[in-house]
């Protein structure tokens, strides 16, 4: 600490140690220079404490909230989509593809299962075996695999960018 003023400001702000506080208190009561300066700084400090804040315009809060509402409304749809919905759709498709794959790979068993089902009304069920072995299914599965690889590639790229 250097000047009297600096010591007194620390005293007024309460940023000095208990020993320093005690010493300055003593000096204020015994030393005329300290006492005079202390009164001067105390008055100045009180003036600063009583200074007034500027008031913003009446419509300030309304303007802020309007700006926020406008910003929210102009957000791209991509940013406001709930990620849980996307995950649920993804889970549905993955499940469907997995089931289709299982049925396709175990084609014979599927036929057996189909045979045990009792249908009271005379309903002609389509024979799925033809579809599973057909090029349409193969094409569909191929498309799914390509799509999955494409999405996985996109995911890895995004992850890599975030890490960087």
């Amino acid at each position: 600490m250097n000047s009297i003023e600096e010591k007194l400001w620390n005293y007024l702000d309460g940023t000095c140690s208990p020993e320093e506080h005690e010493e300055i208190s003593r000096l204020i009561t015994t030393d005329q220079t300290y006492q005079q300066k202390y009164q001067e700084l105390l008055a100045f400090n009180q003036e600063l404490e009583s200074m007034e804040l500027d008031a913003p315009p009446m419509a300030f809060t309304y303007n802020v909230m309007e700006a926020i509402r406008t910003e929210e409304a102009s957000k791209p749809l991509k940013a406001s989509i709930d990620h849980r919905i996307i995950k649920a759709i993804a889970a549905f498709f993955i499940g469907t593809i997995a089931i289709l794959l299982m049925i396709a790979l175990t084609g014979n068993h599927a036929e057996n299962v189909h045979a045990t089902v009792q249908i009271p009304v005379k309903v002609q069920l389509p024979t799925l075996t033809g579809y599973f072995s057909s090029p349409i299914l193969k094409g569909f599965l191929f498309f799914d695999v390509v799509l999955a690889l494409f999405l996985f590639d996109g995911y890895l790229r995004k992850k890599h960018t975030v890490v960087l």
Partner: protein
Amino acid sequence: MQSKFSDIELIEQTLQGNQAAYADLVKRHQRFVFTLAMRFTKTREDAEEVAQDSFIKAYRSLQSFQGQSKFSTWLYSIVYTTAMTFLRKRRLDTSSIDDANNHLQLENQSGGFKNDLAENKSRSYYVNQAIEQLMPDDAMIITLFYKGEQSLEEIAVTLGLEPNNVKVKLFRARQRLKEKLERNLKHEVSELI
């Protein structure tokens, strides 16, 4: 009417999608944020722009508020960076017409000064006038310390400085303010005589 909820409760409500809660936060802090903006911009129009931008930025990054410091400390640091960016941009945009503007402002100030002489002005008026003449950093530190209920440590967080550095800056800012206040009052007395 001020909300009965604390800042943290209002933030939680805002994050759950209640925009009215954020409006309450704005109402609670707008006077101080506006005053801080005034310390930098010196005009009400610009201060309004800075204060509004600060609240919008705070809303956008509300999720990143960890609650480790007071909301006000976090908000004031946003005001500080927004105001600094505004000043930098303003300096670049209007450096050529700055001198002319300053000249006009000084003329207006002195004109207003004489006109107000007849009025019995409070000490608070002179303090505010002297603060307006300070550099933005000095004015901000004094305002944060006296009106923002901020400790030296919190001011250090807001300004990105060390607490000891803030202590020194506060001491110097008060010295400069005192000098300006004395000069203004002396000038006022001589005008009256």
